[in-house]
């Protein structure tokens, strides 16, 4: 059985279910649990649900220490950029402890942060920094694009014994979707084929999965069948599913909200160029954000971002003059 929920509520449902299931799960962050009658405080008490000052380094550091001592903290960071003031803890403490200790310890923390809020939030609350985290050994990185995945990946993140950066896209916050009832887990490292097709493979993450699907609908009208893949987690990254799809379609378009050289798509392009070169019938094309700080002004904001038109044009360019396969 399933029920309909907005993406953000699906995340909260997973945290709530995991806190009911496991007393070692803690939840803390800024501007939460400030009154006694908030649902999480009522359900779990102020020992497990805590408001913190605006001290990201201490918040994340405390989570690391509590995790070393056997707890499973979820830190509510609100904006991915707010992690930037605590990067020592995110990149150089939390994921290093297991390796540096020779495997003696584990650090099961979840750093929950929204990203990519390109809706008039200007230069410092709109970044897509996902690729910054994916190359750090010891970190896992989650980027759900549907309400169901948002729930299932959060539950898996909380149960994972490693530090997980859970990045939810703010443009999807109120998008509704069917969410399985009760316990629901989505495994890490398994991409989802969101639409099957034989002519071109389009890979997106987060909000750009929707751009890829919208473009695929339009392309279908032209007789082009696009396969749309959502990796769902970028560390671990399921390159196998992407390579198998490219082997079938021979064409690859990558869509990413990030700037080009800081994008997940660039990493995927490198993997496919190296390990799937023989499958490619045309060069890979990437549709990424332009190399600019996200502008406030709405038309300029739209100008720097990938959109459905750019994805459609990229697919047409990749397929070039090659005859279009009959649908």
């Amino acid at each position, binding site marked *: 059985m399933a029920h309909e929920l907005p993406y953000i509520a699906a995340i909260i449902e997973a945290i709530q279910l995991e806190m009911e299931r496991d007393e070692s799960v803690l939840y803390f962050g800024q501007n939460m649990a400030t009154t006694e009658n908030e649902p999480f405080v009522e359900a779990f008490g102020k020992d497990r649900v805590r408001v913190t000052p605006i001290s990201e380094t201490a918040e994340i*550091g405390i989570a690391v220490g509590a995790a070393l001592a056997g707890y499973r903290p979820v830190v509510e960071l609100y904006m991915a950029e707010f992690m930037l003031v605590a990067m020592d803890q995110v990149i150089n403490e939390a994921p290093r402890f*297991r*390796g540096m200790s020779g495997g003696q310890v584990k650090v099961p923390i979840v750093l929950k942060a929204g990203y990519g809020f390109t809706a008039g939030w200007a230069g410092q609350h709109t970044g897509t920094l996902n690729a910054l985290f994916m190359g750090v050994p010891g970190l896992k990185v989650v980027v759900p694009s549907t309400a169901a995945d948002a729930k299932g990946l959060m539950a898996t993140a909380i149960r994972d014994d490693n530090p997980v950066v859970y990045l939810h896209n703010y443009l999807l916050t109120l998008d509704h979707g069917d969410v399985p009832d009760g316990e629901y887990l989505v495994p890490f490292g398994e991409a989802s084929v969101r639409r099957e097709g034989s002519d071109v493979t389009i890979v997106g993450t987060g909000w750009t999965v929707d751009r890829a699907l919208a473009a695929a609908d339009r392309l279908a009208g032209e007789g082009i069948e696009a396969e749309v893949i959502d990796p769902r987690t970028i560390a671990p990254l399921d390159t196998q599913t992407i390579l198998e799809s490219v082997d079938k379609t021979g064409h690859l378009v990558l869509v990413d909200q990030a700037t080009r050289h800081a994008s997940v798509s660039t990493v995927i392009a490198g993997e496919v160029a190296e390990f799937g070169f023989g499958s490619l019938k045309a060069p890979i094309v990437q549709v990424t954000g332009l190399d600019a700080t996200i502008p406030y002004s709405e038309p300029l904001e739209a100008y720097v971002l990938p959109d459905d038109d750019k994805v459609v044009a990229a697919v047409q360019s990749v397929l070039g003059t090659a005859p279009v396969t009959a649908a």
Partner: protein
Amino acid sequence: MLNQHKRPGESLDGGQAAGLLATMWRIRLFEERVGQLARSGDIDGLVHLSIGQEGVAAAVCSQLRDDDHVYSGHRAHGHAIAKGASLERVMAELMGRDTGLCRGLGGSMHLVDVEHGFMGATGVVGGTVPIALGSALAARLRGTDAVAVVFFGDGAVQAGHFNETINLATLWRLPLVLVCENNGFAEFTPRSAHTVVERVSDVVAPYGLERSTVDGNDVPAVWDAFGSYLASARSGAGPFLLECLTHRVRGHYEGDPGRYRDSMAEAEWKEKDPILRLERHGMAAGWYGEDELRTIGEAAAAAVEDAVRFGLESPFPPSALLEAAVYADG
């Protein structure tokens, strides 16, 4: 034992003092040997020695239990050894061997010995200060009387995460004892070039936590001050800050030319050396004589040589170790 020279509040007895001397000699001789091995190339990586500061490590850690979590920074050999880590396994770690505490993956700056509650050391100044607060939170949530202790230098105090941690530790009243080893130098820079606040215990004054500054080379004084905070933390109070004024005999790292300071004269250092001071103090108190002291020193020297042999005879870790060490399997 007679405490003939007992000062107000002093609680150290002769047996405990002999134990502290044994620990300090183990650290001192271990680190002197590490310095030699670094120069001969048998220890390959970056090492920072704490020679001169052993009194703080010994007086603090010897009062703790295995379930008390201790964290440290880049100058951590003494803290790990005082908390119970075996000399053999620390030496093997410094040599990058598979038998090391961290199987050779952490090295000098990242010692971890979970079995004895030495939970971690960081190469980033002050990086473990907030992490230690997380261990204190865990102890509180579990309802045990365990405490968390973090060692850091005076250089960490000017970092934002130190202030963030003091704020939250006092707000949440967690059983954390912050132990500052104030050796007057943040890496290569004197404290006076970093801040107008001379005493670390004054930096935290507005938060109202119990705090004090002691002579960190006066081992009975460190023992007393820390013991009193520890007892309060076990009964649910906290946090506490203990600032120990001490002296780093060696450079910031092995190989540091040390042009930024003058060496302390040998005669002055003999007066201040925490080991020699505790030896004189205990002899005056009638706790032990020269024979007992010689036995303590010889036992430490033999243990250090055993550790060197153990390390040199140990294999390097296999590359297959990395897979299990990077990610924990859920």
